[in-house]
């Protein structure tokens, strides 16, 4: 078990990539100190601890140099503390399958939501919403395969993909409301819709899921610092 003060997480409550790490820390009962970062005015700590990307999350463990990139961080935590709530499965082909879908979520699926925010014009937005739903349907199929009738991607309890996709639930719902559609449609993706509710109410996760006010503040900051493209 990590001793109090040994693990520090630099981030912001609104970032799903930070929430992802918080999910794993909570599931593994790892105590940590949360250092709030202001992305509108990046701190010296962030710029020196992640000079390559200047992004959060950044994990500090004791006096070791910092670890960056949320997926790298969660695998590190899983290997550092494998005996408490194992996140990735142990069989190589299952690990590869899980990593493949994490890659899909991070490189193909979630970027669509940012694309939706940045795209002007109703027609173009509709086209992106369509792509999002197609992606959700693929994730529904993945959920069916991984869950095998159980409640989570990880089976009876939360696993890697529950954390990797679950961290986006708040933003997915926020974006759905703003753009008047349902990314986890109850007809096309019924299992995902129910799974999302379970994630929202899970004891270990709900404390790290940002509320609407936090999301709105972050959204307004994005609208200023990374405004939507002109028509």
């Amino acid at each position, binding site marked *: 078990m990590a001793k109090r003060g040994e693990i520090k997480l630099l981030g912001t409550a609104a970032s799903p990539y930070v929430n992802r790490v918080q999910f794993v820390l909570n599931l593994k009962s790892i105590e940590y100190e949360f250092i709030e970062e202001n992305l509108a005015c990046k701190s010296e700590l962030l710029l020196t601890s992640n000079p*390559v990307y200047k992004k959060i999350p950044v994990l500090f*463990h004791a006096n*070791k140099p910092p*670890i*960056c*990139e949320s*997926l*790298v*961080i969660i*695998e*590190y935590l899983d*290997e*550092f503390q494998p005996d408490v709530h194992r996140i990735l499965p142990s069989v*190589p*082909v299952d*690990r*590869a399958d899980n*990593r*493949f879908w994490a*890659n*899909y979520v991070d490189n193909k699926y979630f970027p669509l939501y940012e694309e939706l925010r940045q795209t002007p014009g109703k027609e173009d937005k509709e086209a992106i919403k369509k792509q999002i739903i197609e992606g959700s349907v*693929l994730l529904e199929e993945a959920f069916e395969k991984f869950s095998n009738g159980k409640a989570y991607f990880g089976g009876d309890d939360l696993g890697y993909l529950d954390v990797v996709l679950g961290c986006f639930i708040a933003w997915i719902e926020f974006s759905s409301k703003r753009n008047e559609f349902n990314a986890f449609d109850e007809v096309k993706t019924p299992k995902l819709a129910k799974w999302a509710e379970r994630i929202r109410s899970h004891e270990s996760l709900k404390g790290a899921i940002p509320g609407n006010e936090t999301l709105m503040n972050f959204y307004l900051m994005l609208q200023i610092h990374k405004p939507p493209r002109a028509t």
Partner: protein
Amino acid sequence: MGGSETVLLDFWPSMFGMRVRIALAEKGVEYEYKEQDLANKSSLLLEMNPIHKKIPVLIHNGKPVLESGIIVQYIDETWKDKSPLMPSDPYVRAQARFWADYVDKKVYDASKKIWMLKGEEQETAKKEFIEILKVLEGQIGEKPYFMGESFGYADIALVPFYCWFYTYETLGNFSIEKECPKLIAWAKRCMQKDSVSKTLPDSHKLYEAFLEMKKKFGL
């Protein structure tokens, strides 16, 4: 293990495919190599990778493993008795993953701009590419390989780009060795390993093939 249990769907000039070939060679795994025609994708490729329809695809015991970085980790975890590709310490392992991920995020896209753009835009692309290589060169530092004494995951992620340097240099009219001599020294060190030298195609042959592809696909 028999060759038919392990099949690799690949395309010989692909740096991503080369990563997998290097990893398989490091482990001494016998496999069947199936060259793919990317202009006319096979039903096997489309069946094994329906979402992305891309190579490389490793088929092991009938199951597909996708994405080169994921495949290399799978190879390391499956054939674990020989030549470990990942460091043993979880912290160093995290750093190896970070740097392999950096190569994935930065190198390919930056290299593409060199041969796709002209004039001022190409000059900017070359500068950006060199900056990225300098970051990687800085990370290797005085060590023989990315993570220290052993050739591994992060080296495998980057070294296949080495055989493409001649193409970038010719099309961009610049010298990578002049800008990043230590990186080239690292690459030559990697090339002393059979798994690398027998996998990477000849740079000039690659350049000729690239010009053919450019003409054929109107790139």
